[in-house]
């Protein structure tokens, strides 16, 4: 067995090296037009094509080809940052009035799939809808990203080709949010409810058919604004709920590419061993495993107890044991080389849970003792988690680590339908959780997961001083200064046990070598447009 593992690892390493050549657009090779790309889809659409009403990759991935954003992260660059934002429906943009106004100049001659012209009214309509402006003409049924636009005071459409976002204060991150796969522009002439059953966008592909539970089929949009795009004649997202069948389907060539965030390291090794020519990209998923400690309930209202828990869990062992190395350690923002804002290793080493395990566990026992929990009076806690294998594995590791510092933890599994209501009610003492971050950006992450009063701040961690730090970094225009501020915040959050991070998941995105022009990003949510993808067949 060890020999087999070594051999499999070698094959994977060789394969990953080969990817560098195979995965990047072939230099000197002219893209070919035509062909239908068969794409893996793990479950049916949750809310149809209504991206603005969900926060799941199962919707955004198969819906992105229908839409365009104002701006988008460059599909050809795996790391997403302010520097990789490229125009889409906005040809160019300009920050004005000391970054209080963002003026976007729109592309002319763009048409919706139903033939109606795209104008600035559509942009105003979409973002008034999402930010729930008082005069918004419609309302989303579920609106998970309203907080992204909390700093927008108004949206103006002075002429059909210009849009101005007015802000309360400077916020460079607004452009990052607009570049996310979660920020498509909707047509003002169609009710948002209709996107649950059909899709009218300006995107490179038009929906041909959605057969419920079976597949979603797209055809090329012949009127697409980008010259020569898309290359493919169509896309077919094949819905395969069974994981084993999905893996068999990619191996057998029934599918051309996998689903973002779906392929673990072990699965990638299996695929590579079976099909050595398969291209596998090791990328960051921008999804983290985190520990929820309810800061409103004793004993977790005591920072010493929270820090003790954080110290008790050896993060490096966690990523090795639970993810077999298919994850990396990091604080509240995705670490390098996958993310821009993550803490450096030297800083991580100073934080609870990243030092020498024996030393950290000794410190944890001491802090627990100071809080009144000793061998004679051990802390007993119930850990709640979703009844899904990946959550249970995570929890089992945590329970074992806690046991080593004298904490007696038991596990209660919660049915998926009950998990978010429970988390929103804060009906837990300790929870184990997974969080996907739409963009690698401090504003999107901090305000959503750590800000006072945010519905998704499940631990209810709230610190006025930290809130001020959030606001300061948010309006800092100097990137270096902002990075330093963001690092300080991350250290503070980890020291406070606000939501201890266990690790950041990697994805091993796989595709056949005939698929060209596809660069998976270090974020599963933002590379689904597929307009530059072509097939060398």
């Amino acid at each position, binding site marked *: 067995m060890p020999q087999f593992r070594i051999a499999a690892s070698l094959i994977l390493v060789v394969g990953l090296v080969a990817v560098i050549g195979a995965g990047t657009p072939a230099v000197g090779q002219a893209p070919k037009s035509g062909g239908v790309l068969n794409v893996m889809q793990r479950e*049916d659409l*949750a*809310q*149809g094509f209504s991206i603005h*009403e*969900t*926060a*799941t990759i*199962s*919707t955004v991935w198969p819906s992105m080809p229908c839409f365009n954003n104002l701006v988008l992260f460059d599909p050809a660059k795996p790391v997403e940052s302010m520097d990789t934002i490229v125009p889409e429906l906005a040809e160019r943009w300009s920050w004005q009035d000391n970054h209080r106004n963002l003026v976007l100049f729109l592309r002319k001659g763009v048409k919706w799939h139903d033939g109606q012209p795209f104008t600035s009214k559509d942009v105003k309509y979409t973002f008034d809808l999402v930010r729930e402006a008082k005069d918004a003409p419609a309302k989303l*049924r*579920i*609106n*998970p990203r309203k907080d992204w636009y909390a700093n927008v005071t108004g949206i103006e459409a002075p002429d059909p080709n210009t849009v101005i976002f007015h802000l309360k204060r400077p916020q460079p991150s607004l452009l990052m949010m607009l570049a996310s796969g979660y920020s498509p522009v909707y047509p003002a002439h169609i009710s948002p*409810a209709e996107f*649950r*059953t059909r899709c009218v966008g300006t995107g490179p592909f038009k929906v041909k058919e959605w*057969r*419920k*539970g*079976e*597949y979603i089929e797209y055809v090329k949009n012949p009127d697409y604004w980008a010259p020569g795009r898309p290359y493919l004649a169509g896309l*077919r997202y*094949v819905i*395969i*709920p*069974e994981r*084993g*069948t999905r893996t*068999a*389907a990619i*191996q*057998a*060539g*029934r599918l051309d590419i996998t689903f973002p965030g779906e392929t673990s390291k072990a699965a990638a090794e299996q695929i590579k061993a*079976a099909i050595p020519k398969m291209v596998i990209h090791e990328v960051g998923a921008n999804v983290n495993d985190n520990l929820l400690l309810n800061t409103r309930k004793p004993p977790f209202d005591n920072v010493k107890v929270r820090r003790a828990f954080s110290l008790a869990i050896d993060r490096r062992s966690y990523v090795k044991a639970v993810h077999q190395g298919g994850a990396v350690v990091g604080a509240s923002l995705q670490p390098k080389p996958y993310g821009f804002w993550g803490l450096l290793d030297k800083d991580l080493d100073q934080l609870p849970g990243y030092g020498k395990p024996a030393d950290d566990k000794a410190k944890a026992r001491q802090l627990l003792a100071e809080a009144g929990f000793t061998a004679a009076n051990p802390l007993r806690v119930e850990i709640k988690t979703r009844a899904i294998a990946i959550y249970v594995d995570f929890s089992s590791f945590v329970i074992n680590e806690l046991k080593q510092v004298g904490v007696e933890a038991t596990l209660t599994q919660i*049915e*998926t*339908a*009950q*998990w*978010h*209501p429970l988390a*929103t*009610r804060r009906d837990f003492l300790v929870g184990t959780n997974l969080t996907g971050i739409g963009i690698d950006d401090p504003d999107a992450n901090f305000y959503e997961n750590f800000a006072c009063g945010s*519905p*998704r701040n499940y631990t209810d961690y709230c610190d006025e001083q930290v809130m001020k730090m959030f606001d300061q970094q948010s309006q800092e225009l100097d990137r270096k200064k902002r990075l330093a501020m963001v690092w300080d915040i991350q250290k503070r959050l980890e020291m406070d046990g606000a939501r201890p991070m266990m690790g950041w998941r990697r994805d091993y995105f796989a595709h056949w070598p005939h698929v060209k022009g596809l660069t998976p990003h270090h974020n599963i949510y933002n590379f689904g447009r597929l307009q530059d993808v072509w097939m060398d067949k």
Partner: protein
Amino acid sequence: MRTYITHRLGIAVLTLFGMSLVIFVLMRLAPGDIVDILFAAAGYVHEGDKKLIMRELGIDQPIWVQYVEWLKGLTTGDLGKSYRYDQPAWEVIRPLIPVTVELAALATVISVLIGVPTGVISAVRQDTLLDYVLRVFSLAGLSMPAFWLGMVIILALVSWVGWIPPLIYVSPAENLKIHLVQFLLPALAVGYRSSALLMRITRSAVLEVMREDYIRTARAKGQGERLVIWRHAFKNAVLPVVTVIGIEFAFLIGGLVVTETVFNLPGVARFLVQAILWRDYPIVQNLVMFIAVVVILSNLVVDLLYGWLDPRVRYAD
């Protein structure tokens, strides 16, 4: 006969009514509802918006009101609207039914083709090497769950020949050859397990009949062994076999969950599981009622077949 059928149909209506009540209440006893699931996909819950969606879907009404509305709809052919797909439930369910019925029928045919002859041969050649081989074959079939066998078939195919059946359903009208390729392997996987059961039942029924006086008489009259076995023994042993075939077919309509999932066939059972996970009550209720109707009708057909197969069985008018 007419009275019998009317009586049975009357009982069937009562059974369906009971079923409707049970499934309706059970679904609502399960924790969470569609609105919780929708919010789960958004990662938060907003109580105000939750109430609005519940009102929009009509699940804010008392249970008995929802139940009466559903029953009223059933009588007029309106099955309600899928919560998940925002589409009439019938439009969602309709394409699923032929897939499952065909798979169940094909599996049943395969099970009969394998199970009945091997059961008879095993009985006739009792305690011979052939009997032992066939019994091991049937025991293996009973021991291997169909889904496991299905997954092994898929993995073996992909490992050995790098091929698996198409994963998007192709109707017979579109392409009969691909359609048959899609259905043959899952039908074999399911049919093998059912055939094992049929073989056991056939074997014991034939063994019992073979000891009867009329078999000895037939042989004494000089009839050929083949005629004795198939005309006299098998015909008299067939009643329990028919019962099992009926039960198996009815079971398969709702019991193909994992096989449909493994082979990615868009049938009733696979969809039912998804609908339960999504708390899509209208879909679940109507699919369960459909399965109940199939079970009741299968039993009725089996009972009527008794009278045709065995002249001694008569239903009083």
